[in-house]
């Protein structure tokens, strides 16, 4: 049972508040991903849990026991870095055996442990090689293997596949998840890549400027973002956000006709006049002929991605991106008509960026 808990954790680097009163509970066997831009405090938080950074105030509990004053080695957590940090002069076997030799495990036991873990990671055939003779993906497998042999209470990973190329990243993603399902160790994983976060996480923690913005399942974070930051950080292409005004029961984009929504939605907006309207590219419906309830627009750039197209649409003064099936709009300049799916419309406060919670 390894539950990790952060209580009111704060840390400053000089005048910068890098971890701002963070409270979080990671359940036993859970896979939690810290997602954010560089400099948002995600890595610092991870390092604080590992004991590689001190904290100014608050408590960190691993398995129910406060550890904030313990040294890293006493916390019994494993850390995997983006730079693999393997010993170049040692073979794969010796790299993986290193932490076990350090605690003077019996030779026979070391051998069987390393081989078992190597089997899980499918690197059993590489044990005699040196790191210089391995590909990037294999290097990271070895680094993960070295973390696993100790059977740590928790795995902490800092962008472990960030330096691999796109195809390999996709493969390693599936493998990391399989590994987590098999091993079941509590894992905290740091990344700036929202695709990785969506693919791997049981729960995603979105961080910005040292503050937890939202904690939720990938579905929750995608479908119900609490503010503009989360809305535009998760999802690709990013969620369209435009400043709109509400007039006569319609949502008006400057320079365009008003978008109509069911009364059930409009009444929730109450007296609000000026707000930000958010809609994901796949929640825009397009028509090639004038259609009742649709707003006129013009197709601009078309990005054909094979499985679907992304189209930039000029709607009044705004530019919206829509996801449609391949070849739906023939070429740039074509007039089209669009409608926003009311069930997937988002409204945000223009000043604070907070979601108004107005949903159908």
């Amino acid at each position, binding site marked *: 049972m390894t539950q990790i808990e952060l209580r009111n954790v704060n840390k400053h680097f000089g005048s910068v508040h890098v971890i701002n009163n963070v409270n979080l509970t990671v359940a036993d066997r859970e896979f939690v991903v810290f997602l954010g831009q560089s400099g948002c405090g995600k890595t610092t938080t991870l390092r604080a849990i590992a004991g590689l950074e001190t904290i100014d105030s608050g408590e960190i509990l691993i398995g129910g026991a406060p550890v904030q004053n313990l040294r890293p080695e006493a916390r019994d957590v494993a850390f995997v870095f983006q730079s693999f940090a393997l010993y170049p002069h040692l073979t794969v076997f010796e790299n993986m055996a290193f932490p076990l030799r350090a605690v003077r495990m019996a030779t026979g036991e070391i051998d069987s442990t390393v081989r078992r873990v190597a089997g899980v990671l499918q690197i059993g055939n590489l044990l005699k090689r040196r790191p210089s003779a391995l590909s990037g993906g294999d290097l990271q497998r070895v680094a993960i293997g070295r973390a696993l042999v100790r059977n740590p209470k928790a795995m902490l990973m800092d962008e472990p596949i960030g330096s691999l*190329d796109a195809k390999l990243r996709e493969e390693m993603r599936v493998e990391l998840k399989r590994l987590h399902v098999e091993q079941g160790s509590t894992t905290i994983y740091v990344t700036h890549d929202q695709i990785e976060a969506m693919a791997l996480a049981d729960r995603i923690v979105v961080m910005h400027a040292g503050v937890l913005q939202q904690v939720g399942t990938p579905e929750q974070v995608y479908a119900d973002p609490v503010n503009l930051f989360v809305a535009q950080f998760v999802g690709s292409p*990013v969620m369209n956000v435009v400043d709109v005004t509400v007039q006569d029961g319609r949502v008006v984009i400057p320079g365009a006709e008003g978008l109509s929504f069911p009364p059930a939605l409009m009444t929730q907006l109450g007296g609000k006049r000026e707000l930000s309207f958010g809609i994901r590219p796949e929640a825009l419906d397009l028509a090639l002929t004038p259609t009742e309830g649709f707003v006129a627009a013009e197709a601009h750039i078309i990005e*054909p991605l*094979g499985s679907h197209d992304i189209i*930039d649409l000029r709607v009044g003064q705004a530019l919206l991106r829509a996801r449609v099936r391949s*070849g739906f709009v023939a070429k740039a300049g074509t007039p089209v008509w669009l409608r926003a799916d009311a069930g997937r419309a988002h409204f945000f406060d223009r000043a604070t960026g907070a979601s108004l919670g107005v949903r159908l």
Partner: protein
Amino acid sequence: MAHIELRGVFKRFGSVTALSDINLDIPDGQFFVLLGETGAGKTTTLRVVAGLDKPQGGQVLIDGQDVTGWGAAERDVALVLQQYSLYPRYTVRQNLEFPLKSPMRRVAAAAIAERIAKVSRTLRIEHLMDRKTDRLSGGEMQRVSIGRAIVRNPKVFLMDEPLSALDAKLRESLRAELKDLQMSLGETFLFVTHDQVEAMSMGDRIGVLNRGVLVQVGTPADIYARPVNTFVARAVGAPAMNLLPGRQEDGADLGDGRTLPLAGEAGRAVIFGVRPEDLEIGGAGIEARVTDVENHGVEKIVTLQAGPHRVRATVPVTVQVRAAEMVRLGWNPARVHVFDAETGRNLRF
């Protein structure tokens, strides 16, 4: 304004053939993308067009004129690289002025100011003009390098992975910006990348390079829907096309009782290819076990084990599937590919 043509271009470095017999025709005003992995020869092709490398054989023509023997400066092409290579001690304005102040092309001071004003407006860097370039973010620096290429009004724009060093969000927005720029300038762009999303989204036409050979040239839709071989099939689309080795029996069975008439004897080894979005979960088809489900919000990527094969399918988020579940896997018979196992050649399209 330029029409670029390569005729039988051949280039080797020592014993390595970097480019073998490249024939390429890029009409004026086209956004052409060369797509390939590291070492495929795409940068070499670009350097040959720029005049930075001399081919051992073949011709390079710009606007019908043979420029093979010309130096880089004489060709009037602009090159934008992945590394920004801006002058760090200069301001943005000084960096932009630099190519215009070259003794090789005298430009009047008023004309310089006018051109720089126009370029900075186009690239939305007006507010940065008096900053030193080492005070800029990656995206801003890349805009300035593109700006420095534009001010000269070159005939051709050559770009070598200009977006690769930027983070994902920035890449996405600069992609659209660059395409927009090319459309408004109406100039010829030759753009090199290893990123298939960039190639698909920006290119009017794509050339796929593999080990110095131009494997296929076509529109993005063409390359995606009708790849000539397994290499091209795997080069575009993410997740990549599923390729399953099989054997031809009485034509190729497409799983719904339809067979594909194929020449050649029965028993010939073939590869069956189907894209993740053309697979459907449920219905009649082969049995498979779900090993992983990734929910990406807009769609789910499902990894399945079908007999000895691992396949990936993309399905709408509304489809409910769970890991370890057994499902039936069907496919869209109109969209499957059959490749020759030996040569990898597409037998269907």
